[in-house]
């Protein structure tokens, strides 16, 4: 991690990034930004945004796409060589979610699933009871389950204990762009988790993504912040850099906060006497 090379800052950064893959259930990803596809105004804009984001894994709502259809979102992902993470968006019961996951496995040949079980259309918040029920069934059926969950440390722990491959707490409600409303809970989830923590939902702009990574999340999943931005490809690039910046800051170790100023050229360290 440390380097004696004081001239090649860029090289040092790249080397650190390349040696720092995201690992979920044994699979490695170079990018810590997972994208969603909802809300894009056109396939062309979506393709440009995904390319600009540098993502290697992108989630697709299986209820809203026919896997066999030509020119679909899945075609775009195939062309860009991005892996598909099917999700169960639009399901309100464990039964529907399990069925949707199984149909996705058949259609796409992947046993990975981003599990979403929504309580109501007004908040789109996860229904924790149905979520745990569905996660249990899917883990038992051999799926690699990535559950979209409330930012509740206890629920996150229970999901991990029953065999989920990651936990995906929300920052704030889906599509709200309100950012991370309870950073303290996210920190608690990160502290206890033995599986990757992926901040999912609610991010609005680049600083939100950087904050998620600074809090110790292993990755960020977002869609609306990019797809509904005025210029989706530019926002995707911003998110890509923000995730990297936040990750590097986390690894670098931030300074403690102080109440009063401290001169940056004091009596110790480089540049004195």
């Amino acid at each position, binding site marked *: 991690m440390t380097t004696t090379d004081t001239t090649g800052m860029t090289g040092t950064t790249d080397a650190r990034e390349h040696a720092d893959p995201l690992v979920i259930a044994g699979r490695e990803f170079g990018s810590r930004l997972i994208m969603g596809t909802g809300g894009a105004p*056109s396939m*062309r804009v979506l393709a440009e945004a995904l390319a600009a984001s540098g993502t290697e894994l992108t989630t697709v709502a299986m209820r*809203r796409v026919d896997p066999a*259809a030509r020119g679909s979102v899945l075609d775009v992902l195939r*062309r860009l060589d991005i892996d598909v993470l099917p999700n169960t968006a639009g399901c309100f019961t464990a039964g529907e979610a399990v069925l949707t996951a199984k149909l996705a496995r058949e259609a796409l040949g992947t046993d990975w699933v981003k599990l979403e079980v929504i309580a109501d259309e007004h908040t789109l918040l996860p229904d924790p009871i149905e979520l745990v029920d569905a996660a249990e069934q899917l883990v038992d059926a051999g799926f690699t389950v990535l559950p979209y969950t409330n930012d509740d440390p206890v629920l996150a722990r229970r999901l991990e204990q029953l065999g989920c491959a990651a936990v995906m707490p929300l920052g704030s409600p889906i599509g709200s762009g309100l950012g991370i409303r309870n950073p303290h809970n996210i920190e608690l989830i990160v502290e206890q988790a033995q599986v990757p923590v992926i901040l999912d939902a609610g991010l609005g702009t680049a600083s939100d993504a950087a904050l998620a990574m600074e809090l110790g999340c292993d990755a960020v999943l977002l869609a609306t912040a990019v797809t509904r931005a005025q*210029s989706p490809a530019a926002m995707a690039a911003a998110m890509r850099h923000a995730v990297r910046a936040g990750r590097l800051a986390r690894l670098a170790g931030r300074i403690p906060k102080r109440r009063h100023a401290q001169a940056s050229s004091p009596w110790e360290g480089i540049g004195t006497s």
Partner: protein
Amino acid sequence: MSATARDPRRPPAWDVLIIGAGVIGLATAWRVASRGLSVTVVDPDPAGGACRVAAGMLTPVSELAYGEEPLLRLGIASRDRYASFVAELEEAAGHETGYRRDGLLQVAFDSDDLAFLDDLRRFQESLGVPVEALTGRECRRLEPMLAPSVRGGLLAPEDGSVDPRRLTGALLVACQNAGVRLVERRADALIVERDTATGVRLDDGAELRAGKVLLAAGAWSNDLKGLPDGVVPEVRPVKGQVVRLRARAPFLGRATRGLVRGSSIYLVPRADGEIVVGATQEEMGFDTTVTAGGLWQLLRDARELLPGVTELEFAEVSAGLRPGSPDNAPVLGASALPGLFLATGHFRNGVLLAPVTADAMAEMLVDGTVPEVAAPFTPDRFEPFEVEARA
């Protein structure tokens, strides 16, 4: 007449052959035939497909999206041609089309949706498009059946609507009167000779030859056999479910669109009492199944907008396939294959864009020039996208 390579022993039977008798194919056929060219149109189900399901909103202003400014210009150009297009058509066909220009009211129900409309209005105004911001009370004065919870809205006074079924009905008659021949068969394959499109082979094996071939097959535009790779941009079917209700008493004065918790619903009234409620937008391939969820979503959102809809007669529910191009905009003009022209990929705007498309395609097919309004929409714009996507 044409400089394209052609076997002199077998002169083409027609000047122009059009694949697809939807609103785009028929409008273009009528315009081209009116210029004195011989035209034949091939379609197993004339005036079927997407235009039989479409609501017929002529509302480019409210459909504005970031990054789609050229499409707004094209939409406004077409909307502004509608009055004269329809007047000529009704004269030629002796049929009315249900055209009206009484504005589009767009309303919001909560502060989030109101903020969205505010942002949209600022964007519209920055492009010099006039819209009127209304309070909730003003919205309800225009449309008393609106739910009391309406918070505010925008009125695009120049927008309007047309009945696509009457429109295509009139176009069929006008085409017939102009000497257009209609062949009710499916075009199976494009005939290409010496690297030039020279006609089509029909599903019964018969061949039709023409000096120029225009592909206007909507969502089916990529399905023609014999198309060389890359000549037609990807056009995918985007399913839309649409409900038709019937009112016995005046219910709604003008096309009205609502944002209900972020999702968009619209109702389009007709003079005969029909009220069209649309539309879902689903990426389901060539599937036209009507689903319980689609119907429920439309009626649920319509009821939030106008509680009285539950008292209306339920007349019909249907699903159609919009032809979605990669950038949502139509593909208009000569393809890379000599002899083959394209007018497809109109997505949600086929009915709106029919007049400008027909005029532009007529100019390209008859005079060989590209009108300025169509220049941003020629097929060659997709090449960079394809290259980037492969990299």
